[in-house]
């Protein structure tokens, strides 16, 4: 049944856990729509025949709907639409909440190619390797205009926005090669901004990434040099370099000893990631990737309680990969103390 409907609707193969959820809802919607509109259509055709005009200037009775009819045509469609909405929204919330154990991959779109970087290396252009049956979270940004990551076989899509990170996730189920397409119009070569997702058996993937990390130092990525940033190497190491170069460490401490004692100009980075943080307007937020990125680009949007808004914006000063590297560096800064588990929102743990 699934296979028949999938073929009839020209849907691509179902290669992620999310694909099945989406397709089942799709079938539900299309089957209900088909039957409902066929019923309305048949009634209309019956009327065409039964009530065809029989003589010129035929008089017709005045007919108006009963209150019951109007209530029915409001409540029945509304009930059906809301049912679809609830199922669709439930699935969407699932898609917006990556599991804590998801493996992270940084994705950057630029006119007109895709770059993928793993926190501990390697990075690649155009081809994304992921293990099957393990959740993978994509942290997506763009270097220039808006792009959009679309993997039809996984039924996932997320825009790549310049100046901020968006995220999506999937668990691929079937090893193989799948096309990745850009779905946000981005200029002359938009229709050629394709990439490939290679889904590997988990063991094969582990082998592959170890191999890559070993050979990483010697390889040069020909396409990365115009970025002024060498994408090769450990993102955390790169993040540390960026933090020193950009002067972040003049205000933010990365030293365990400072934590908990004297207050610096800016909040410490140690244990910052996932820390429940009180803001000066009284609300409490979780310091996640989105918050960290925002604090670099628009530092005054959220001020931590007890601190002054003195940080300049790094909008335009940090490239996409540099931002990713900084985030990854901050995430790596952990003290030994046991972290207070957050009770609000999902907990993201990077894969170490």
């Amino acid at each position, binding site marked *: 049944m699934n296979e028949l409907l999938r073929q009839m*609707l*020209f*849907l691509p193969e179902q290669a992620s856990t999310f694909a099945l959820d*989406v397709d089942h*809802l*799709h079938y539900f*919607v299309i089957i209900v*729509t088909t039957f409902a*509109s066929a019923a*309305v259509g048949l*009634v209309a055709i019956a*009327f065409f025949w039964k*009530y065809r*005009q*029989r003589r*010129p*200037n035929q008089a*017709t009775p*005045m*007919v*108006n*709907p009963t209150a019951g*009819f*109007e209530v029915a*045509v*409001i409540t029945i*469609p*509304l009930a059906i639409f*809301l049912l*679809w*909405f609830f*199922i*669709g*929204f*439930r*699935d*969407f919330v699932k*898609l917006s909440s990556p599991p804590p154990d998801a493996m992270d991959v940084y994705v950057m779109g630029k006119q007109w190619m895709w770059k993928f970087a793993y926190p501990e290396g390697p990075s690649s252009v155009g081809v994304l390797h992921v293990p099957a049956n393990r959740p993978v979270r994509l942290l997506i940004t763009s270097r220039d*205009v*808006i792009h959009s990551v*679309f993997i*039809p*076989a996984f039924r*996932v*899509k*997320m825009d790549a*926005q310049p100046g*901020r990170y*968006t995220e999506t996730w999937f668990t691929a189920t079937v090893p193989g090669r799948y096309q990745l397409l850009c*779905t946000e*119009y*981005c*200029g*002359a070569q*938009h*229709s050629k901004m394709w990439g490939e997702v290679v889904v590997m058996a988990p063991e094969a993937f582990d082998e592959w990434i170890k191999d890559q990390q070993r050979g990483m130092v010697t390889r040069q990525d020909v396409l990365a040099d115009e970025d002024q940033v060498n994408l090769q190497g450990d993102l955390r190491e790169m993040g540390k370099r960026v933090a020193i170069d950009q002067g972040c460490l003049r205000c933010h401490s990365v030293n365990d000893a400072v934590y908990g004692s004297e207050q610096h100009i800016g909040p410490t980075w140690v244990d910052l990631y996932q820390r429940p943080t009180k803001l000066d307007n009284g609300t409490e937020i979780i310091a996640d990737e989105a918050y960290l990125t925002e604090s670099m*680009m628009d530092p005054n949007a959220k001020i931590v309680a007890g601190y002054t808004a003195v940080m300049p*914006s790094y*909008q*335009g000063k940090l490239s996409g990969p540099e931002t990713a590297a900084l985030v990854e560096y901050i995430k790596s800064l952990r003290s030994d103390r046991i972290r207070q588990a957050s009770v609000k929102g999902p907990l993201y743990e990077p894969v170490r």
Partner: protein
Amino acid sequence: MSQSASTAQVAVAPAGAQLELPKKHYLNDGTTIRSWLLTVDHKRIAIMYLVGTTFGLLLGGIFAMVLRLELLTPGPTIIEALTYNRMFTLHGLVMIFMFMIPAIPGVFGNFFLPIMLGAKDVAFPKWNLTSYYVYLAGAALMLWGLITGGADTGWTFYTPYSTTTTTNIAPVMLGVFVIGFSSILTGLNFIVTIHTLRAPGVTWFKMPLFVWAIYGTSIIQVLATPVIGLTTLLVAAEHTFGFGFFDPARGGDPILFQHLFWFYSHPAVYIMVLPAMGVISEAICAFSRKNIFGYSMIAMSSLGIAFVGFFAWGHHLFTSGQSAFDAGAFAAISMLVGVFTAIKIFNWVGTLYKGAISFTAPFAYICGFLFFLVFGGMTGIALATVSLDVHWQDTYFVVAHFHFIMVGAVIMGFLTALHYWFPKMFGRKYPENWGLLAAGLIVLGFNATFIPQFLLGNAGMPRRYYEYPERFAALNVASTAGASLLAFGFIIIAIYLAIALFNGEVAGRNPWGSRGYEWDTPSPPPTENFDHPVDHTRIPHDYTDTEDVATVSHAT
């Protein structure tokens, strides 16, 4: 027997005699070019809108055919990538701002709104003419900008692409800004006309449903259009002077643009489709000889769509990184638009019950309209079902969905209006058999063009693709074949209407035997609209007592 009908009896020739056009009517009241260009007669302005918007439809149609030909093969076919990108920008902008938005309100709203209300003209006739010239000026500026500047941003102008592109988009943005004023002026004029110029007896709930639809449309035009005006100016300023509103490299926020843009452009869909719904409400009564089934429900659902349509824009941003809560809220609100549309559809089908249906060309278009609205609407509901949209967003599924609504429903509404009111506007009939043939071709052509595009979207083909992977080729060929059928249908219509305009059989006052108010006047109407005192005491489309119009119809 009402006053108007008995006057009508007097006015027409006896049964069997050759009908003649009235001696004096708005078309021959002044024949100089000046008498047209400087007219303040709402009917002549409507005809000028007909010329302008039809030119827009022709241009947009030609661009569409170029796009479809390019997509015939997966690789480059007839044009380059950059030309293709300019073509779809041109196609979108011309179709939306030169045809879809002004077409039905500008042509049929202008022509029939005052007549339906029993007024001699709109409230501000000179504004009405001004509005037309503002439309022409904006359209000319936009076209000039597109052709010389070569904007390649798509009609959505998403930042920062649009503010960093090397093509010159400033004149295009200014053109859109100027056209917006035409839209606001027309909307304001109609609102004031409806409030102040209803003839005695035409109470709010006796207004024809077309008037209600135009009323809803006008409210959206007045409230939403300023936002797109503002947005286009900001984009033009960022592109030209480098201000940082939307480009993150300059400290701006690209998502802000998307919110501003869709705050107008989502309601704009209802600016296009509500008037078409109004046309259908009129014509379905005339061709099933029945009062509308649930008058107040249909009237109020027009206002409901106009209101709720303002709060649904975020469903265009499900994959932009918008929060899950926002996505859910916008999705739930979008479902309400679907419910208001469903009310209309059920009530239109209910109108057929116990009617006396004649299957004419306008009725064929009504059927086409219902078909496209049902499937265009249901795919819209499916797209608003958040998780489904993740797969479909920015694919051909979206393209097919909005073409079903905008091309399918709106053009069906336009063609219904054109055929239903052609005898009233020009006093002559079009050839019915040719009309039915063209209607069949067009409905078939639309389906053949856009059903494959739904499937392309399912298969995962993104929109605005100049080249595409091989596996999408077969469906693209089918779509292009369908588009050529469609073009053929439009050519037939253009030919027979052009012939009918000068040589068609004289229609007489009321060739359809319709009981809409507008059919009480001669065809074509005199400059002052009525040849007898207006008496709109009956409710529109009451076919319970057809004795009085019978005489008129026999004569016809």
